[in-house]
């Protein structure tokens, strides 16, 4: 029963945080003068300054903040996030067209990041203070320090510029012709998935080919964090009495390391993996800008430069919700596998 209790407590807490996030986003929005915020309501190009003035009146952009806040909330719940200048469409429509590109990269990168991080982290801990451990530690701390944008540019310079492989973008020109033609059915928006559903393997390989470099970029940088965490939590697990006992009674060393110690060492990694998924999504602002992949990160970066307030606020709210949601899921998984959490 305590598990149910725990879930309810966590859900209530999540709602509280989300209200806080919406307040924060709203206060940021209120710092922007009404003349700029009105852009969220402009849906056609020719607007005179009188139009803007009357729109500010109509939409009550000079009303007291609490009034505007509740009006804004009401609009959000009806799915109306305003008009995005950069997407040249209502925000939700823009989101629908950009999001799959982001999701696709994150879905490919996250498992790889975690696998690489856990594998090397375990190796480092088992061979503590051996050359391989030093190598892994150095790799991890260097990876942790490198600017995403710099590594991305270097990868592009070498692979695309020098070797002429792995171009930026999401598809080759030939591939784009296919997906913009009538024969193509957009089902999920994820190119590799849609390619299989459309039975177009050429598009599948084409999309995968364009995914390689950004994925490498993310794995090189983000696995560093998991590696460090895995190494230290694995070290802690290896120092426990049950490991010593198991080894002392002659259990197979490999089994003890990988079955007994690693299972416990993985616990903190689960927490960080959820954050990693959400963090990768936020980090897309940089990755997608460098590799010109038109996802929500790319959209957000353009929106910031063109003062597209409605797109920015939507994305902050969206990513905040993802963060909170992922954290909730992680906490629940954690509670399910570690009874100490939910009982305390």
């Amino acid at each position, binding site marked *: 029963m305590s598990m149910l209790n725990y879930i309810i407590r966590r859900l209530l807490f999540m709602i509280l945080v989300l209200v806080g996030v919406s307040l924060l986003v709203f206060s940021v929005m209120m710092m922007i003068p009404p003349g700029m915020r009105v852009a969220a309501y402009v849906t056609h190009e020719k607007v005179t300054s009188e139009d803007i003035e009357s729109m500010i009146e109509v939409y009550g952009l000079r009303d007291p903040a609490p009034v505007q806040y509740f009006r804004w909330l009401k609009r959000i719940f009806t799915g109306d996030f305003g008009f995005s200048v950069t997407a040249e469409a209502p925000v939700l429509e823009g989101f629908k067209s950009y999001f799959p590109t982001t999701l696709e990269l994150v879905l490919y990168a996250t498992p790889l990041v975690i696998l690489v991080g856990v594998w090397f982290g375990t190796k480092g801990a088992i061979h503590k203070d051996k050359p391989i451990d030093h190598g892994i530690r150095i790799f991890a701390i260097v990876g942790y320090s490198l*600017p995403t944008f710099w590594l991305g540019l270097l990868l592009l310079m070498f692979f695309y510029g020098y070797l002429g492989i792995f171009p930026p973008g999401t598809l080759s020109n030939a591939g784009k012709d296919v997906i913009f033609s009538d024969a193509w059915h957009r089902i999920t928006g994820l190119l590799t998935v849609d390619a299989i559903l459309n039975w177009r393997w050429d598009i599948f390989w084409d999309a995968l080919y364009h995914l390689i470099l950004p994925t490498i970029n993310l794995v090189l940088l983000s696995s560093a964090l998991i590696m460090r965490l895995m190494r230290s939590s694995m070290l802690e697990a290896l120092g426990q009495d049950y490991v010593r006992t198991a080894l002392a009674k002659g259990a197979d060393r490999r089994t003890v390391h990988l079955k007994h110690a690693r299972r416990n060492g993985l616990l903190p990694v689960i927490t960080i993996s959820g954050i990693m998924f959400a963090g990768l999504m936020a980090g897309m602002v940089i990755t997608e800008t460098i590799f010109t992949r038109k996802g929500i990160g790319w959209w957000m970066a353009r929106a910031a430069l063109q003062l597209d307030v409605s797109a920015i606020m939507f994305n902050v709210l969206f990513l905040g919700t993802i963060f909170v949601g992922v954290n909730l899921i992680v906490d629940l998984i954690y509670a399910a596998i570690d009874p100490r959490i939910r009982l305390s």
Partner: protein
Amino acid sequence: MHSTDSPVDGSTIGQSASEAQGETKHPGLREFLFSMKRLLKNPLTIIGLVIILFFVFLAIFAPVLAPPPQPHDPYLMPHDGWKIQPSPPSAESPLGTLPSQYDILYGVIWGTRNAFRIGLFVVAANLAVGIILGSLAGYFGGIADEIIMRITDIFYAIPMLVMAMALVVAFGRGLQSIIIVLIILGWPTYTRVIRSEILIVRDMDYIHASRASGSSHLRILAKHILPNSIFSVIIVASMNLGTTVLTAAALSFLGLGADTGYADWGQMVSTCRNWIVGPADNRLAYWYVVFIPGFVIALFVLGWNLLGDAIRDVFDPKLRRR
């Protein structure tokens, strides 16, 4: 103050400890020397230290190493003409130039000062806010704790870079906005660390003893609690100095920071995005434009991370005497 003549006062304890110093070393000093020995035994720490000292040197001697042509605004990079195409390293500009002929070496040197300015200012402000709010929350608990910690929860719920972008847009582009935004967003980490450290020592006997002998809350916080709790937050600060500069650089890279021509590392990388592919006969012709400014950022962050990592290993009681 009446507590000065009370028997359990801090000053008498300090006195007896300094008497003991005559025969053996002061325990504080002994621990400090032990820490230093441990620190300097690790080659990675030495590398980190050398990197940081190198950057400190660059920042301090910037006016000598790269005399600014316009002394009233040294952060403006000088440029010889407006030719768009970057020039390779030469006698005139040893590291080459950016597009529009901005001297890279000059940018790197004055960019160091700029990085320290951003990093130190932001981290110091974060520390101050974090210590005050963390102490309030941890020491007094109750409603103050509840409110402060729920606010940090909200800040933690939003990805830093994205929120920073939104705020910079609201404040208006520029380096100053970036600094303000990083101050607004950075304090929750420190608040959490300080609070959890204080929670550990808050109910220890010596605190109760001090309280019973009439010390004020402020005195207990300043003399007994913070000195015990401050170390972990200093470690966080040293690691964050690097990441703060990294975030600022990322924002500049996205075009939300300084204008072109300003000696800011992130801005320097952002100008080179169109030059990753050279002409057909030499694809890597503009490598220096892409490589150097980003390399400097990476080195700076690496230095602080190495240092923070080492300090953490040495001062973490769990790892200390292993």
